[in-house]
């Protein structure tokens, strides 16, 4: 097995076995984990406690049963899965759960947590142009900090937090470089591998993840760049899972040359910048810098333009919209983006992502037709 294959296999293992990742972390450090609900959270605060921040992005192919008691069938697919897992006690091992509420479903879900872990709910201000919004978010983060300290029995110092911010900034920068490397080497980093590298960062300490990804990048970049005979696409949406779906991308020669997925590149889009006001204030300011996301209010709706720029930058042949089933914010963005793509003559395709589904024939038909169309 080559070095590249070894690293990818290691990251794929972590991505596929979060339970094991948690058990290993507990055994190694004696500390537990804090769940991070989608979509954005001040993970640096959790990292500074020494607990492992673990992303909670649902599950794939789990049949929804108990969740129906609490959620209507038209609640978004990822929340259905999370509710089902809560009901099953899958998250009870977590020492706490950090819960942001940028959409209606998350807001309602935050009020009916069915697990036993304590839940820390906080709000992102949606009027993001005001200095008052930064101050508000600092207050929210102070509450998050206080509750983390209370539930985990730790103290978070500014020095700890600064160290965590630096670790996260480095990880985000390395992942942005990884995106470019994956685009240049689709023969080496296919759609499944690319996703695994992103997903593993949800279940690992970021410094360890950074180390592995840096090594991966160095190994891949040492290889010759080969021409790609397939098509190049940019994917946008909440997430693009499971591997069976990504394997269809591989089957039809679709290389993912950039993404705007909430689970992937939106997490690494903006850094916490240096400056005045202390770490919490700078973390709050990062939320104002966030752009191109359906749950971060943008009165100018720049997401379509951002994607059009990505197409120009990467030379992508098309944009694929991975629409999370029943996700209102994403559905609202779609007609605007669609019109902009059509005006610019950018080929685009919407596929529906439903985490409960185990059959992908219809998506296969759509993707095959799309490739034939291009």
């Amino acid at each position, binding site marked *: 097995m080559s070095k590249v294959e070894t690293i990818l296999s290691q990251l794929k293992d972590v991505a596929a076995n979060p339970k094991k990742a948690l058990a290993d972390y507990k055994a190694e450090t004696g500390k537990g984990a804090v769940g991070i609900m989608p979509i954005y959270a001040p993970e640096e605060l959790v990292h500074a406690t020494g607990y492992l921040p673990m992303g909670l992005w649902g599950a794939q192919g789990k049949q929804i049963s108990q969740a129906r008691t609490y959620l209507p069938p038209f609640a978004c697919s990822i929340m259905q899965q999370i509710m089902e897992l809560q009901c099953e006690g899958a998250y009870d091992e977590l020492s706490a759960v950090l819960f942001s509420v940028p959409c209606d479903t998350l807001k309602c879900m935050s009020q009916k947590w069915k697990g036993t872990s304590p839940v820390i709910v906080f709000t992102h201000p949606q009027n993001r142009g005001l200095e008052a919004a930064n101050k508000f978010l600092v207050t929210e983060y102070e509450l998050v900090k206080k509750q983390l300290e209370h539930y985990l029995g730790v103290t978070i110092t500014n020095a700890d937090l600064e160290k965590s911010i630096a670790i996260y900034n480095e990880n985000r920068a390395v992942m942005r470089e990884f995106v470019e490397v994956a685009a240049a080497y689709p023969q080496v980093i296919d759609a499944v591998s690319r996703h695994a590298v992103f997903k593993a960062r949800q279940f690992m300490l970021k410094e360890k993840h950074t180390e592995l990804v840096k090594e991966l990048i160095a190994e891949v970049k040492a290889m010759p760049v080969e021409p790609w005979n397939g098509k190049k696409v940019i994917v946008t949406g909440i997430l693009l899972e499971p591997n069976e779906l990504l394997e269809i991308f591989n089957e039809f020669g679709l290389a993912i040359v950039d993404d705007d997925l909430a689970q992937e590149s939106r997490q690494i889009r903006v850094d916490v910048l240096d400056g005045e006001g202390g770490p919490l204030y700078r973390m709050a300011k990062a939320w104002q810098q966030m752009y191109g996301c359906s749950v971060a209010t943008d009165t100018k709706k720049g997401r379509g333009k951002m994607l059009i720029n990505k197409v120009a930058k990467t030379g992508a042949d098309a944009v694929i919209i991975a629409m999370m*089933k029943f996700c209102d914010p994403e559905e609202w963005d779609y007609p605007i983006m*669609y019109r902009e793509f*059509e005006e610019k003559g950018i080929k685009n395709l*919407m596929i*529906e992502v*439903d985490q409960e*589904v185990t059959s992908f*024939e*219809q998506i296969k*038909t*759509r993707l*095959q*037709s799309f490739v*034939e*169309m291009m």
Partner: protein
Amino acid sequence: MYTMGVDVGSASSKVVILKDGKDIVAAETVQFGTGSTGPQKALEKAYEVSGLTREDMSFVVATGYGRFNFEGADKQVSEISCHAKGVFHLVPTARTIIDIGGQDAKAIRLDSKGGIKQFFMNDKCAAGTGRFLEVMARVLETTLDQMASLDELADEAAPISSTCTVFAESEVISQLSNGVNRNNIIRGVHLSVASRACGLAYRGGLEKDIVMTGGVAQNAGVVRAMESVLKKDVIVAPHPQTTGALGAALFAFEAAQKK
């Protein structure tokens, strides 16, 4: 040179054999789809009608939901591409295709050369498809081929508000028990199917000529409903159920020429 297109759908199997990419020597449909004996039976019928065998085929293209499970094809092409190819061959003025099959509905926009500009498919739901009509026909104690003529006898459309097939079935049952005229319910059912399919067509933008294909296009009641929803004329493709197989046979001809 003979080429063959096999469209293995969810509810039916279609086979078209072409001579020199022009003349249809067989176009057969069997009302059983993927996973059944339908594809084999459709093949046997096509061979019988044409007097040809597999050895006579220079190239075979499979399409439809079961295209990857059909053994004996040289290539698989998606049904979107095949419908576009088949329809444009039959109706070169086609710019919008609305295809309603057994379990899915599609809207395809074509350019003036027959290339696909955009397409939309329904989500994983039987509402607005042939399956929906089958369920309704059973509840209404009629058959699919009688529905169009019963629709003609209606004086108005009974509203079918539910978009879900299961809920719509309950709605139809309660309307029947309330004494609503059966023909009016049938017209309402047709309108419901048309509204769903038109929703897809609106997404991609409507451009004339609008051509309807798929098994449901054989139901004149649905076609009339489509015209009333779109407020535009709708052309039904000749042999609307076999346009996908025809497109596949045309792709097969192109591939055979390159061999």
